[in-house]
């Protein structure tokens, strides 16, 4: 049933062959087609701008007050491309290979190869838009090594690469808005995907300022609505990030793939209190010069400066001598958890490790370190009141990115015809673990260089239908949304929305976080329905549905997390192997490293919705590896 539609032919020719064979919509007909784009991060803005340039009618929706604020903006580190400017041996093949291996052999080779192929076009496009990438004194683009890569292929813009890339995509979007070619709706939340006769035909949205619920029909719908890290309550995601659009598409039949693949970023500022609303990431680039350590003696409460060199455990350097502090994210995170679980953690909660720049400052001087990380050090100082120039940073892992998402075929179309999913919202390119600087690459690849071709192929085969937003499918959905809103407002219980969100988040973090086991997952499966049940009886959402009501917005999102969380756990429970960000304690080597089970689990797990609280139906898409031979990752 699951046809991934991977083109025939040798890996390196698949995308080229596919592009030369797919159907085209002639220029005069493009204006007859209507496309809805939901979300204005890198993927959504890039797609909307490009499709509008091609001549399609594009309607765009975002929940923020401006498309420029989507969470892509917060990415710090960089964007990969196989330009090989440093002449250090990079190539499309190498970027492809590293990404498949880094994803722990749980991604589709063909998708990843295409990603590597278009990576260079992205850099060209962004530079032409005026994205101010870092440059050398000679005026040419600068690159750095990032996240353990053996080559320098990461383009960056100080510590704000995501912001600068998003401003580029946003400016392209606004160019089309200014021409009157794109119809932009801000502060609107998508609450349903409307499916007519098995085909995605539109969306139902709630205007967050007026509470008005309206229907919008189209020939195709693109979801670029980001990831679901906020299911865990505390994450590095912006507060408004949510799973609602994806989850509601799932409830309409779209398959959800690999939800248990979540990425926990090793270098975040540790939790400091119950009131904490979010976690802040400190760029991975810090590990290029920072050394991670904990005291050798458990519960050592001396100031780090008073702990002599021989009483420090640089555990990453000790365990992984060839990669040291630059091991991939999953390894760095898990090892931080281990040392803290064993009582070696530092700081007030014991859930932190040191990231120390003293050696780098001695070797390179404070000025060099300041030039590299000055803005990050300031940010850290502002939040923690401690200067990394003087004292080591304290860091701890936090939920950061979700590799799982809606299932899509090679054309980025879900199993629901007409519903396309881009960027973090889909599952496609990162397998079980995403490498640093590749999220931005994927978002822009999907938006600028893949969807413009593949959506044309779909539209060309489907006559432009004047689907009426007054069809009963739309009206029924509107009514259901209004009823649900009224129901939530009438509960008038004793707990706030955040109380429930925190409770769910803690449960997911403890039982399905950096390491997972059958007992903990089964326990979570018992508890989630209890929280959900209490939510439906005891949540308190004040105010009305006729004006801006932020508690009501959150209530809708949390109610979806409470349903989605269970599917995430089912996925984690069924995948009895360890791979990438999914570490099952039952599946490890004698040395305690993750142990994949390729004989039984080399597949994409796509889940089909069966009802709230019902076990979803598992559909497998087998993964084959032609170019990158399966091997156990080793960073020793």
């Amino acid at each position, binding site marked *: 049933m699951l046809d991934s539609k991977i083109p025939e032919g040798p890996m390196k020719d698949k995308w080229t062959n596919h592009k030369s064979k797919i159907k085209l919509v002639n220029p005069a007909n493009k204006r007859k087609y209507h496309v809805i784009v939901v979300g204005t991060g890198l993927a959504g803005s890039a797609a909307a701008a*490009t499709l509008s340039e091609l001549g399609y009618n594009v309607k765009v929706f975002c929940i*923020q007050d401006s498309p420029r604020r989507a969470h892509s903006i917060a990415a710090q580190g960089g964007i990969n491309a196989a330009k090989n400017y440093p002449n250090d041996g990079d190539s499309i093949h190498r970027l492809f290979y590293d990404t498949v291996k880094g994803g722990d052999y749980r991604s589709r080779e063909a998708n990843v190869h295409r990603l590597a192929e278009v990576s260079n076009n992205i850099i060209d496009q962004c530079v032409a838009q005026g994205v101010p990438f870092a440059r050398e004194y000679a005026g040419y683009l600068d690159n750095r090594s990032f996240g353990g890569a053996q080559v320098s292929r990461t383009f960056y813009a100080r510590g704000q690469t995501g912001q600068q890339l998003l401003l580029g995509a946003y400016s392209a979007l606004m160019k089309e808005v200014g021409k009157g070619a794109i119809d932009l709706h801000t502060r609107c939340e998508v609450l349903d995907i409307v499916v007519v006769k098995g085909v995605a035909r539109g969306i139902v949205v709630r205007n967050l300022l007026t509470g008005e619920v309206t229907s919008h029909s189209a020939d195709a719908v693109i979801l670029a609505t980001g990831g679901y890290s906020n299911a865990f309550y505390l994450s590095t995601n*912006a507060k408004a990030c949510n799973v609602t659009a994806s989850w509601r598409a799932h409830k309409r039949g779209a398959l959800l793939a690999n939800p248990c693949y979540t990425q926990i970023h090793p270098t975040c500022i540790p939790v400091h209190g119950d009131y904490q609303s979010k976690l802040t990431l400190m760029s991975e680039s810090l590990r290029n010069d920072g050394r991670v350590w904990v005291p050798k003696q458990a519960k050592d409460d001396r100031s780090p400066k008073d702990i002599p060199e021989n009483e420090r455990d640089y555990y990453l350097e000790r365990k992984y001598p060839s990669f040291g502090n630059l091991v991939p994210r999953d390894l760095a995170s898990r090892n931080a958890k281990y040392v803290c679980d064993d009582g070696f953690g530092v700081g007030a909660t014991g859930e932190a490790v040191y990231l120390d720049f003293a050696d780098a400052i001695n070797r390179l001087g404070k000025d060099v370190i300041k030039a590299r990380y000055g803005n990050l050090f300031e940010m850290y100082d502002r939040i923690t009141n401690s200067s990394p120039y003087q004292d080591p940073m304290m860091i701890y892992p936090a939920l950061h990115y979700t590799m799982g998402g809606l299932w899509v075929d090679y054309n980025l179309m879900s199993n629901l015809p007409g519903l396309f999913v881009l960027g973090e919202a889909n599952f496609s390119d990162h397998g079980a673990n995403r490498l640093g600087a590749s999220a931005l690459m994927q978002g822009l690849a999907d938006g600028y260089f893949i969807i413009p071709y593949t959506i044309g192929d779909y539209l060309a085969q489907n006559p432009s239908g004047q689907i009426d937003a007054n069809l009963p499918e739309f009206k029924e959905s509107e009514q259901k949304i209004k009823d649900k809103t009224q129901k939530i407002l009438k509960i008038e219980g004793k707990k706030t929305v955040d109380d429930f969100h925190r409770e769910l988040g803690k449960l997911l973090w403890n039982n399905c976080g950096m390491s997972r086991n059958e007992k903990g997952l089964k326990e979570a499966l018992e508890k989630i329905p209890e929280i959900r049940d209490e939510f439906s009886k005891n949540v308190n959402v004040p105010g009305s549905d006729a004006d801006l009501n932020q508690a009501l917005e959150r209530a809708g999102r949390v109610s979806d997390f409470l349903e989605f969380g269970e599917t995430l756990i089912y996925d984690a429970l069924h995948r009895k192997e360890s791979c990438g960000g999914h570490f099952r304690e039952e599946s490890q080597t004698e040395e305690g490293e993750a142990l994949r089970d390729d004989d039984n689990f080399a597949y994409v797990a796509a889940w089909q919705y069966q009802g709230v609280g019902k076990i979803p139906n598992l559909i497998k898409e087998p993964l084959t590896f032609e170019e990158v031979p399966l091997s156990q990752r080793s960073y020793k």
Partner: protein
Amino acid sequence: MKNTIELTLKVWRQKISEDKGKFETYEVKDIDTSMSFLEMLDVLNEKLTLEGDEPIAFDHDCREGVCGMCGAIVNGEAHGPQKATTLCQLHMRKFKNKDTVVIEPWRAKGFPVIKDLVVDRGSFDRIIAAGGYISVKTGSAPEANNQPIKHENAELAFDAAACIGCGACVAACPNASAMLFTSAKISHLNLLPQGQLEAKERVVQMVEKMDEEGFGNCSNEYECEAACPKEISVSNIARMNREYRDAKFSV
């Protein structure tokens, strides 16, 4: 070791745009000084909710100082007392026990109040739509390294591009001028070789849109620069004025 303080908050409450609005006073206790300002408001909102009141509406999203969504006037200063800091990155250690803290929305003709501390900054998007872009269609870009850019210009462009579009510059300006925002975007693009072809149209269209949106003029108070969380320089305004003059008189 935890330090806690208690504060008297005077917060602007306004149900909808058309209402007059007024200050309400709230007492908050046990505020951990390592909380962020927005977390302090969260704590108050949780309390208000459980007491049956409507929580204070305020915009926020990334809570790490980059999305530009949050912002309020705190004791008369846009984003509060800490220099180069967005409201979400302001921490309660900057306040003293028993302080009174007055919290208001951005106030400007170009930013109508929507509710409580939330304002409509759609005017900024419309200024960008008037010319804040380089018209390069996807796919038509040349090889990125074909055009080296002088390091100094690239850095200046970057300094301007760091603007997060929060609107503090407008809120801080006695004339509610949007010239720092508008000039930052113009400088970012006009300083780069890629932005040259459209440079004149860009400055004219964006400046005229800015005026049309009801923002005031610059009278060299420098309040915008002082309030800017990204320390965007007022020299961008001078550059914009120069380019606007040249563009108008050379056409």
